């Protein structure tokens, strides 16, 4: 119990204290424009303590802003899964499909969200669908690739069970291929969610839509630097929580 307390509470707090100290030192010496931790708290407390206040479109509690971002990420993420999962299965199952589309996947995967967003704006003419388009397009690749790898690494043992029973194509899929691939698919989902959350900031910054990323950019332009740090910390905390949440889901699927 004592060891657990040390390793799970005291040591992580020690790490956080080191970072706070470094932040204080930097803001006091080489970067006088960077608000110190104390000043950041002073200027941000209302946003945190009343997370859902709304004074106007661009002045809202951090909880409300985070909620807008989460909804946008949720839409993009669901779209990414809806497109990415079937593509992953097709890549894993069909050799001709793999040969046709794997090069495209490898080509599109490393393209930055910053590059897709203007294209989204050209296609959709509005910032909201453009942001969702960008999130989906950037976030789907881990799902695509993990699903395809999962299908290809199904144990021959399981496939032989289906072959001996001469299962129909659909039963082979629902009873053997999909359940055997599921742990890989969910690992892909977790990575995709992480990417979707990464992309949200960039897309909100560029489109100026209300949300944590949009707020961050607006406050930079208004010279309220403490709120940049508030936004950064919020983004980090939510990203961490999302990853933990998907990790739990993933663990449930893995225990077969």
């Amino acid at each position, binding site marked *: 119990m004592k060891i657990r307390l040390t390793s799970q509470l005291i040591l992580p707090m020690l790490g956080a204290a080191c970072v706070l100290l470094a932040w204080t030192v930097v803001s006091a010496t080489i970067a006088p424009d960077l608000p110190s931790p104390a000043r950041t708290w002073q200027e941000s407390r209302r946003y945190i303590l009343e997370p859902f206040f709304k004074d106007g479109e661009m002045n809202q509690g951090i909880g409300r802003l985070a909620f807008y971002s989460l909804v946008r990420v949720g839409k993009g993420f669901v779209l990414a899964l809806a497109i990415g999962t079937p593509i992953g299965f097709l890549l894993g199952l069909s050799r001709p499909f793999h040969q046709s589309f794997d090069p495209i996947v490898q080509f599109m995967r490393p393209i930055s969200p910053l590059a897709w967003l203007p294209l989204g704006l050209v296609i959709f003419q509005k910032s909201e669908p453009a942001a969702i388009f960008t999130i989906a397009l950037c976030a789907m690749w881990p799902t695509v690739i993990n699903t395809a790898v999962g299908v290809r690494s199904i144990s021959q*043992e399981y496939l*032989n*069970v289906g072959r*001996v029973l*001469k299962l129909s194509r659909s039963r082979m899929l629902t009873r053997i291929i999909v*359940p055997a691939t599921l742990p890989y698919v969910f690992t892909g989902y977790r990575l995709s969610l992480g990417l979707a959350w990464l992309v949200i900031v960039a897309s909100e910054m560029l489109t100026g839509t209300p949300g944590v990323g949009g707020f961050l950019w607006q406050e930079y332009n208004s010279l309220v630097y403490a709120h940049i740090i508030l936004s950064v910390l919020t983004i980090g905390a939510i990203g961490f929580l999302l990853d933990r949440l998907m990790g739990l889901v993933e663990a449930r699927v893995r225990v077969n």
Partner: protein
Amino acid sequence: MAYVEVRGLRKAYVTPRGRTPVLGGIDLSLDEGEFVAVVGYSGSGKTTLVSLLGGLIAPDGGDIRLDGVPVTGPGPERGIVYQHYSLLPWLSVRDNVALAVDAVNPGLSAAERRRITDEFIALVNLTPAAWKRPRELSGGMRQRVAVARGLAMRPKLLLMDEPFSALDALTRATLQDELLRIWGERRSTVILITNDVDEAILLADRIYPMTPGPDAVLGPAIEVGLPRPRQRRHMSLEPAYQKARRALVDFLRSSVSEREAATTEGGPRQMRPGSGTPGSPMEV
């Protein structure tokens, strides 16, 4: 023609480092309702033989006929029980068996298929564990599920690939006894692949010894003269048991020493079943 007829079955694996001939012409035949064992050393190609009989891989030569029909691929008329169970871990015991029952009886009503599934789960005494997942079961229980699944397909031929070799000795004995009982009730046609001489004698009507690979072949069949129903107790005292065991062990021993002699001479491997000089008689 026999019910199961295997003639000149050959298989080699081609790897970047060359060609490994595994089976060098397997001949084997079974009548309907017969229990036959193939006994050989580990690595002699027994699993390759099962995969060929199951139609999971294609032979390089020779043919297999079951009930007069050539085997060209896998099919539910040849059930397979694997050494490592091959249960689907995301399905319960019941669903693992039901998958097989549903697949081979598309014409039956759902109620009838459920009845068959329950019947075979009960046959291996797993009714209380029917809703458990394989990971919640011991090795012995998992293999029971695999046996139930194999039997529930009501195959013309049941192939068992070292079904009990991953189990501890006590569990193995229990499952052997159960298989003996179940076979006594149902008289399926079974080919059991094993490396356990006593298991083969306890269970089989006839035993084919297998020479060590590469180019493994089967020796002449050894009839097990033990009457049925058989009991494990006192079996080892029966003259029929001792006779079968001696014949089997002698063949396996001499095939190994010949193989070693052939390898050290570097000459061609010419051993054929039955042509070997008998090794020294082995005391039982």
